[in-house]
């Protein structure tokens, strides 16, 4: 890991398009400003991690689909109404 000492208003450059600037240093934390191209998403790490974990939890939808399908069969297709997206299950 590269380690830098930066004062207020000083920056670091990452590649040629990303700049991280120290805006304020306080007792509660350091306020950073990030400038990056639109193609580079910038997130707080803990939020990214939270969403990643939630996605992993949700990722295998097959058992839930099988349950939904079972429920459909039980209800004898009473709610088998065409959905908005044209389906072409074969």
């Amino acid at each position: 890991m590269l380690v830098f000492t930066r004062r207020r208003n000083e920056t670091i450059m990452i590649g040629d398009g990303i700049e991280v600037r120290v805006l304020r240093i306080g007792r509660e934390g350091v306020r950073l400003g990030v400038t990056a191209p639109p193609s580079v998403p910038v997130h707080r790490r803990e939020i990214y991690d939270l969403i990643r974990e939630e996605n992993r939890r949700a990722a295998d939808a097959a058992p839930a689909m099988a349950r939904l399908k079972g429920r459909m069969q039980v209800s004898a297709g009473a709610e088998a109404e065409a959905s908005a997206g044209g389906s072409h299950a074969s």
Partner: protein
Amino acid sequence: MILHTTSGRPEAASMVRLVTPFGTFTVAGDEIVTFPSGLPGFERCRRFVVLSSPEIAPMRCLQTVDEQAASFLVVDPRAALPDYRCVLGATDLMRLGANPDTPLVWLAIVSFDADGAAFVNLRAPVVINPERMLGFQVMPHNSLYPLRHPLAST
């Protein structure tokens, strides 16, 4: 919206066959949505399709056609919360190749707890620009919506 019926369309070499618990789908290349950054946790899945079937309606299935298996049940976030609203910034619109007037498709990822109760992720919705077939998962810096919003029994 994403999947159109393929009847009458010539079978192309780019057709992908997907087997799901609710049927087998044949997907053409122009039905594939590109997620340039993948999804968090599935960064290597770049190509997805949205599958619809009466068997899972009103939910749909967001499924990758890439090697790593990932399939999500998704639902219109407004089905969970009628006044749901998520505003995209200029950077987000640029990533979608969209402008503020472009009609976008919003999908909230559904998950289930151990008891089988359904929840929707309203915090980080998936958004697709059907004109460009580009999508990504929005991670708003400030969102009041929860990661797990209970989905009323459908």
